[in-house]
């Protein structure tokens, strides 16, 4: 059977559910369980039977999907966690837009599966893009508040920037080997290998919320708590760590890859730990802890133990998701996420208990699966270097501190001004999702047992590092110190991180501001300059033509008005004048000429009559005159 079904089923189902509109919680909840249950079944079947699939896109492009052991484990984990979280979402989130939320969560599951089962970089890229798009849509779910859409965009742009690395890797791989298969990565040499390895590392770091990409995870907390639980704790951010774990054997061949990965992971773990200790916002504390835990996974990958990273990924997902969901419940109970105002332990005792189960895993206490996988990370780091292991231990201690702080502040005993609040107790469907996840966490406690651990390692097809007892005890000491420190902080500085320097530092130690100043503002200025150039320089031509055309037409219109119309007006005036003149003068002339001629003729006739004097001497004189004239004419003619 084709492995494409695994992503396609939730994909299509999710789109259908999203477009169906808002239905009742029961209906949507049932749908979610059915679809994701089917997906989980498919994943189990595919893992058991080793399905694979290919898709011939064209002569050169060939998409393929295959199950490696690591991918099998993660492919099973994803729908399991998604099932619980989506069910919780259908019961807890507000009804407006619930259909879209549910559908998108299921679509996201399908996309995540695509990322997990991909066997070549192009398929991976397709899935990568899809989960990024789902993340944007889900963070901006409550789009009527403009801040949420801004946060979604921030998250999307930042992870997209990291994805440039993945694009570069895809292109380099194709240029080098002519195909996108993972298998080709190991054969790379020189600059292309460098581009592929570090491109994938860049995109993984951005997706996983590592330093310096961490602030987007804080902004992503603007989404509903279910979204935070699924995407930004368990799966999407884990995709970064997953791909590194998946490709580690090939990627580690690139020079300096391991060291860089460890450096990134350690920096994030330590910084995230400090911020988690200082943070007062419940979800942001958990987000900082997500980045820190992913830092641990990066360390494991860099140290050369991808199986450890994958195990930690799975365990982290199972305890982080219920923490987010319970933080969401607490937040909707008091109306804000301020930890110093929560203390809902006695208001929501069951939830508090479930959260406690998850918290101990986060703290890395020895009896939990989270503690076990963290110890494995320490052991792996020890293999890379003792100081690295020490740093991991410090990170573990910090995580214990903030985990304690979270649990005690959020679900601790209420004090004088908190106890008499009216708090709505969550209903059992809401609790059910958390309960399922808490059960999963509890189940992973079994990893402390060696046979289980070995079986898990064998399933994953990787080795477990061997550590020293010194490191183990040192790590436990750090954890204990962290717990004590957390208790101390809660007792004496309950409002830590609400105001002052702590509040400022808790926002990723000023990293967002640095990003704004160093990246956002220059890019904005560049964009504005480009826009200005486009408007004034490039558009100058057409605008000039348009202006010229407008001026030309205005000029022509004016010329028409002034010259042509003036000519017409003058013609009219002239005609008018002519008419008037003709009326006065022309009439006089045209009447005068005949009348004058007549009068003249009359006068001539009257005067001619005077010639008839009757006197013969006159007539004689006339005759003489006439003779002279005739003679003159004749003489002239001669």
């Amino acid at each position, binding site marked *: 059977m084709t492995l494409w079904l695994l992503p396609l089923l939730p994909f299509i189902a999710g789109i259908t559910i999203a477009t169906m509109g808002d239905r009742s919680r029961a209906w949507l909840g049932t749908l979610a369980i059915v679809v994701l249950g089917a997906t989980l079944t498919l994943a189990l079947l595919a893992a058991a039977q080793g399905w694979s699939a290919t898709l011939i896109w064209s002569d050169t492009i060939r998409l393929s999907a295959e199950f490696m052991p690591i991918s099998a484990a993660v492919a099973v984990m994803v729908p399991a966690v998604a099932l619980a979280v989506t069910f919780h979402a259908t019961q807890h989130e507000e009804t407006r837009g619930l259909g879209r939320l549910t559908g998108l969560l299921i679509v996201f599951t399908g996309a995540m599966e695509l990322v997990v089962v991909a066997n070549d970089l192009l398929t991976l890229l397709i899935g990568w893009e899809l989960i990024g798009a789902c993340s944007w849509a889900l963070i901006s779910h409550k789009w009527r508040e403009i801040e949420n859409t801004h946060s979604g965009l921030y998250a999307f742009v930042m992870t997209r920037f990291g994805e440039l690395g993945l694009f570069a890797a895809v292109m380099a791989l194709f240029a080098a080997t002519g195909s996108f298969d993972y298998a080709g990565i190991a054969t790379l040499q020189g600059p292309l290998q460098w581009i592929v390895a570090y491109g994938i590392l860049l995109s993984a770091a951005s997706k996983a919320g590592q330093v310096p990409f961490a602030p987007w995870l804080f902004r992503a907390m603007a989404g509903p708590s279910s979204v935070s639980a699924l995407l930004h704790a368990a799966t999407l951010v884990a995709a970064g760590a997953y791909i590194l774990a998946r490709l580690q054997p090939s990627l580690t061949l690139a020079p300096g890859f391991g060291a860089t990965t460890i450096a990134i992971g350690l920096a994030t773990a330590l910084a995230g730990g400090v911020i988690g200790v200082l943070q007062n916002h419940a979800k942001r504390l958990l987000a900082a802890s997500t980045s820190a835990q992913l830092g641990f996974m990066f360390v494991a990958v860099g140290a050369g133990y991808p199986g450890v990273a994958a195990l930690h990924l799975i365990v982290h997902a199972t305890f982080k998701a219920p923490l987010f969901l319970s933080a969401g419940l607490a937040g909707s109970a008091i109306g804000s996420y301020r930890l110093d105002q929560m203390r809902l332990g006695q208001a929501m005792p069951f939830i508090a208990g479930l959260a406690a189960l998850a918290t101990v895993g986060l703290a890395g206490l020895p009896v939990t699966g989270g503690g076990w996988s963290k110890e494995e990370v320490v052991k792996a780091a020890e293999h890379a270097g003792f100081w690295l292991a020490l740093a991991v231990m410090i990170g573990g201690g910090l995580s214990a501190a903030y985990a304690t702080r979270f649990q005690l502040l959020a679900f601790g005993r209420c004090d004088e001004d908190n106890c008499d609040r009216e708090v709505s107790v969550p209903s059992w469907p809401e609790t059910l999702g958390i309960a399922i996840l808490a059960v999963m966490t509890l189940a992973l406690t079994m990893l402390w047992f060696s046979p289980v651990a070995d079986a898990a390692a064998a399933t994953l097809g990787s080795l477990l590092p061997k550590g020293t007892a010194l490191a183990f005890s040192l790590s436990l000491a750090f954890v204990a110190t962290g717990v004590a420190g957390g208790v101390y902080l809660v007792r004496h500085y309950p409002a830590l991180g609400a105001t002052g320097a702590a509040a400022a530092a808790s926002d990723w130690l000023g990293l967002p501001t640095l990003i704004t100043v160093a990246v956002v503002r220059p890019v904005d200025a560049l964009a504005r300059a480009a826009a200005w150039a486009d408007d004034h320089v490039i558009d100058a031509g057409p605008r000039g033509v348009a202006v010229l055309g407008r001026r030309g037409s205005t000029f022509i219109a004016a010329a028409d008005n002034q010259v042509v119309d003036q000519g017409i007006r003058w013609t009219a005036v002239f005609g008018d004048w002519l008419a008037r003149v003709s009326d006065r003068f022309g009439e006089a002339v045209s009447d005068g000429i005949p009348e004058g001629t007549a009068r003249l003729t009359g006068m001539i006739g009257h005067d001619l009559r005077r010639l008839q*004097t*009757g*006197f013969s*001497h*006159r007539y004689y*004189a006339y005759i*003489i*005159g006439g003779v*002279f004239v005739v*003679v003159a004419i004749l*003489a002239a003619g001669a």
Partner: protein
Amino acid sequence: MTDIAFYALSALAIWSGWRVFRVDSMIRATFALMVSFICVGGIALLMSADYIGIATVFMMAVEMMVMGLFMVMFMMNPAGLNPMQMVHQHRFSIGAGIAAFIGLTVAVLATNLPNNPLPAGRDTLHDLGVELLGGSMLIFETAGVTLLATMVGAVVLSSRPGRFGDSDAGAVPPGLQPGGQPAGRKVEKSGGHGGHGGDSSYDMNMKGAPKSDDAPHKRHGKMPEEES
């Protein structure tokens, strides 16, 4: 010799011709004209036109007598005892005369006149006689008949019994109806009452002063428009 005679005769002819119209006495005018003709006859004689010269003299002598008779009959001042100038359109006439003289002279001077003089010793008289009664008999006879007609006409014109009665009785034609107005145009009063009746054209000034010739217009009085 002949040249001197010619010049003298021509000068005399011209001078006496001019004097015709300058003298006060009519008889003297008549005689001046006769002198002019006699000079012209003399010039003709000088040119060997014997018959014409002699005939001119004869004829003119008689003509002048006749003219003198008529002068005495009809002119008011035949003796010229009172200086009178009876002229009209005086300046125009002088201009016309001078213009005619100049025009003719220019024509004469400008023309290339043929020169075929009379051969000397020719008996022109004989030739003329032969010609007159020979080849040109018709002309001669016609002239004679014309003269006869002239005589008859003169007699008719000047005889006393008119057509409708005695001519000096102012005979008028009978009327179209018996006893009615005489037929024909009504005779105006102009020219009645003797030679000087109402005729203000007689210029009592010294002779030489031109007189305008608007008498007939003035006689009818001013035009109505001119009366203020």
